[in-house]
């Protein structure tokens, strides 16, 4: 009986080749442990991971299922030496591996796994900056016609002729959302036109920080065209941070004030259709824009003009005709061309390796 029991114990082979190393590209506090599977991997319940500071007393710090050959211990203290053992477990039988060499975790300065992003950022940044400075040297930049932005002049003009206000909604995003920032850039240009034509601009906001920024932008726009007296501080206001209460408030403004033009430009979610449909029912010209792909169909359906994705970001340059900004857009287009070429080449190589008949690039 004892012989059978001993045989069953020693029949369980331990994991081998245990290697522990400082987890690369992290902020410290982590060691990665790797091992080779036990020969009896199919029979074991799990692998238990043990850690020691002195190489003699071990404590369990984790476990992982069979078939797995690595785990991260994220509870280490940087600068301390640790030893690791991995135990194969079956029922109550636990067979330990040999201990690993001592290992010490540390914090890394650079995450090398993100170097591809960094290189792409540098290349695209360089292209954009090249065209920006080419524009500064006086190079002519051709930008394709964006119908939605060309309509802004007409929309402001229509509101002026009708003696009705313009409603500008910057969406429900926060100041860190790029769509909100782009929207505030457009707001600056729209506010200048409103100031020039002396048209009332209503700007209800959902976020208190966006409200304070929007208020300053509109005020500065009125100043920049020499109409500081026309700025009405009460027409820029904060409503609520509740998504649907904000939608209800804007619907109320649309119904009561009957703006001649509604700008729905920024970051939107489900309220996009509620706003766009209410605006359409009042007969206002509607210019919408967002980078939220899921909301674009609603705007395309219910609004007269829609700025799709990047058109939203290009808007302030397009309206202001500022050469430097136009240069940046040109750079953006060349960046897209560059990425497009890379994607096409990668796709062709992918296809060539996929079709066995071609057998190239293997």
């Amino acid at each position, binding site marked *: 009986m004892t012989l059978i029991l001993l045989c069953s114990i020693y029949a369980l082979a331990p994991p081998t080749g245990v290697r522990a190393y400082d987890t690369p590209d992290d902020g410290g506090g982590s060691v990665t442990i790797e091992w080779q599977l036990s020969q009896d991997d199919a029979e074991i319940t799990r692998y238990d991971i043990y850690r020691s500071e002195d190489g003699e007393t071990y404590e369990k710090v984790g476990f992982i299922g069979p078939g797995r050959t690595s785990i991260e211990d994220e509870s280490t203290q940087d600068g301390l030496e640790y030893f690791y053992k991995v135990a194969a477990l079956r029922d109550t039988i636990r067979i330990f591996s040999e201990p690993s060499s001592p290992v010490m975790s540390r914090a890394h300065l650079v995450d090398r796994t993100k170097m591809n992003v960094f290189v792409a950022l540098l290349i695209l940044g360089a292209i954009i900056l090249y065209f920006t400075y080419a524009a500064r040297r006086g190079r002519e930049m051709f930008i394709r016609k964006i119908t939605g932005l060309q309509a802004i002049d007409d929309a402001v003009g229509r509101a002026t002729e009708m003696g009705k206000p313009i409603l500008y909604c910057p969406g429900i995003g926060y100041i860190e959302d790029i769509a909100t920032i782009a929207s505030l850039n457009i707001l*600056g240009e729209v506010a200048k036109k409103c100031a020039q034509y002396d048209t009332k601009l209503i700007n209800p906001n959902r976020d208190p*920080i966006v409200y304070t920024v929007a208020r300053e932008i509109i005020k500065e726009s009125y100043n920049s065209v020499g109409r500081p007296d026309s700025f009405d501080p009460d027409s820029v206001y904060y409503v609520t941070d509740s998504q649907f209460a904000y939608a209800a408030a804007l619907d109320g403004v649309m119904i009561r004030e009957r703006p001649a033009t509604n700008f729905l430009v920024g970051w939107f979610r489900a309220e996009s259709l509620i706003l766009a449909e209410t605006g359409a029912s009042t007969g206002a010209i509607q210019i919408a824009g967002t980078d939220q792909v899921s909301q674009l169909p609603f705007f395309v359906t219910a609004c007269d003009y829609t700025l799709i994705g990047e058109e939203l970001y290009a808007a302030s340059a397009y309206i202001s005709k500022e050469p430097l900004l136009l240069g*940046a857009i040109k750079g953006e287009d060349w960046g897209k061309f560059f990425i497009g070429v890379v994607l096409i080449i990668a796709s062709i190589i992918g296809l060539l390796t996929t079709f066995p008949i071609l057998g190239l690039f293997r």
Partner: protein
Amino acid sequence: MKRTFPLILVFVFGILGIIPFFVPHPVVQNADGFLRNEFLRILVAFALVLGLGSLLKVHIDKIKRRRENWQYSWILIISFLISAIIGLFGGVRGTGILPTSIGSFQFDIWTIYWNVVMPLGSTMFALLAFFMASAAYRAFRARSTEATLLLAAAFVVMLGVLPLGDRISPHLPSFAQWIMDVPNVAGQRGILFGVALGALATALKIILGIERSWLGGGRE
């Protein structure tokens, strides 16, 4: 200086926002956490006071000048004051110094939120069903080639997800799924592709001070 100082701030904080993405060191990550969580929270608190002040000012002004529907502004101001008093002195779950229940009737902020704010929000959300119907009617009128294509694609997709579609042809559900998975995803990826690059360009323009519309324009 009025414009230079904000530009310097944007440049410094813009770069400080990029660095933590590439540097995992705790010193950088903790500083980033402080800026994003603690610093921003203080900033939001100040902005919120300004925001609420603006809201009250607009509605008090509306009552003073007896503008159209001025009576509703009273509802807003009274609701605002009641919520503020209960929230400040009654605590979120009625743990403050102010009693927030009369017998079994509770009126702490948590109860108000779940029984008033949430149902009102849900009501607005429910309106989407009706707006979707009217928007779909407008979108599906076959007035142009694009609208006709949209109508045909929508018709196929709608039939494909219904049991009737499978009865008409067993290939219809898979064709509908193909429309959703291939042409639809291709279009979405095209837009997202431009959005990603546009976001990068916009961020660069703002950090480097090329884009100044947010300053109200001007270059002085």
